[in-house]
């Protein structure tokens, strides 16, 4: 599957395209198929996202899992600061990134 990701323009937060808008949680990301580029163009033009790009991912029981570790780190947060990730209380979250 293909995911569309980028950053929030004013805050820099990592965003994922849900099919209807943007979420900070990769679990809510939608498969954009071949439509990533036009969605990215429209959303960037509207300044709802910055630097959007398409990545490969696989579907899992917990939602989409980015194929590359860089995007998995983006999706969670720094593996060396669990307290600053999106799942500070989930002890298994970092292991799933790696």
């Amino acid at each position: 599957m293909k995911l569309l990701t980028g950053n929030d323009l004013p805050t820099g937060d990592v965003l994922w395209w849900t099919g209807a808008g943007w979420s900070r949680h990769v679990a809510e990301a939608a498969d954009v198929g071949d439509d990533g580029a036009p969605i990215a163009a429209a959303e960037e033009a509207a300044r709802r996202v910055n630097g959007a790009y398409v990545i490969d991912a696989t579907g899992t029981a917990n939602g989409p899992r980015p194929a590359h570790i860089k995007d998995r780190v983006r999706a969670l947060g720094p593996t060396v600061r669990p307290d600053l990730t999106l799942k500070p209380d989930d002890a298994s979250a970092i292991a799933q990134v790696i």
Partner: protein
Amino acid sequence: MYKYDQYDQAIVDARVDEFRDQVQRRLAGEITEDQFKPLRLMNGLYLQLHAYMLRVAIPYGTLDGRQMRMLGHIARKYDRGYGHFTTRQNLQYNWIKLNETPDILADLATVEMHAIQTSGNCIRNISSDQFAGAAADEVADPRPWAELIRQWSTFHPEFSYLPRKFKFAVIASDEDRAAMRLHDIGIQLIERDGVLGAKVFVGGGMGRTPMIGPEIKDFVTADDLMSYLEACLRVYNRYGRRDNMYKARIKILVHEIGADEYRRQVEEEFAQVKLLGIDPPAAELARITAMFADPAYDTATADAVDRANANFGVWLDQNVKEHKQPGYAIVNISLKPVGGIPGDASADQIDVMADLATQYSFDELRVTHAQNIVLPHVRKADLYAVWQKLVDAELASANLDLISDIIACPGLDYCSLANARSIPVAQKIATRFASPERQRDLGELKLKISGCINACGHHHAGHIGILGVDKKGVENYQLLLGGSGAEDVSLGKITGPGFSEDGVVDAIERVTDKYVAVREEGERFLDTYRRVGMEAFKEAIYG
């Protein structure tokens, strides 16, 4: 320390206003990201993996307590309560918001700080010896010259769009504590026949093509130094490659045309530049130099230190260095606790270090390229009190220059350029070698980790270096041995096939075990490696 004059303050304030307007226009959609990106980079603002990252310049790593406190304030107010001290003697914030950046820069400007030229193809922050002005072995204080180069290079109209970024280091001792020859231009102040001047090395650097800068000028008088540097930059600006960013650094130019031809062209250019009168008038140089005068040392203070506390004694031996002034010492604050993140300091720790500087070090601190902090002028009589406060703040790791004093770039945990994580590897190595006795037995061992070929973690210059790479989507770590950024400068060599994250920790232990087995009396790891060669270590690593 240097204090801004009206011109310094005016240009920094004007830059804040200018960037505030640029940010507003970007948020309003009046300019695109393609148009905005070079503008934000000129102000040290990157977009990294999780957020914007702001790199704040700390000229030649020198700052005062008020400035340090401001760094803590910004960490607390605008970031997530910490900052990361870098190998360029700067500080980076990892969680910055674009819409708050103008306010951050305005706050910085109130304490004579900024983020100008911490990115882009321009002359970056000037680095220097963290012991400048305190070391007994320097021929002159390098900071006035570093400051002069800072002023000359700030908004220099000719050198704002160089082929690639450009890094200076200025030292004034035979002992190189600033990796001087691994800079685009390295300057060593020297004296010849009672005249102050400099050796100039051009074309050093790390990154994907590491090179040791060759000596281009064995002696240029201080009176001619700025003209000579201008000539060096002009030749690069004219002939440095702009068609290929991987071949655009000055080291490639010097390597391709040869040091002799580069030198000849610089001399030719220098003859023209010298006529322009850009070297500073004596009065201006004296004005700058006066700001770096020695503090008012207490000449009656005791030279002896009570070592009754054993842990204090260990810290004293490892982290405290000789000062040129009797009764004083140089205190190194390690930002490398075992299991911690190299170079990171919380806002509270930043405040503690600022307060220690104010109370005990004539209000002065230094940031080192090894991602530690220095209190340059501490009375020996105050060392125990300083140590106690460092202990309370978890800043008293007694591991300077030992295997756990690891340089590590932010790596894939933060950096969009990285291919692999650096910090977890540093944490695992430090934990494996956590025993203070074992570390001290291994002695000086500089371990440096980069998460990609750009080498922000100086892996080429590590006695042991580690380079993280992406091997078919999996983190893999190459091991290098034999590098040095010091006066015995050398580039590390790759041992062979790479390792997993845990595998590289095991491999390092096999390297240190081999060292312990074959070392001779008084040999550091690097000395032993140079004596016995790579093969003996390869055999130990790979069997």
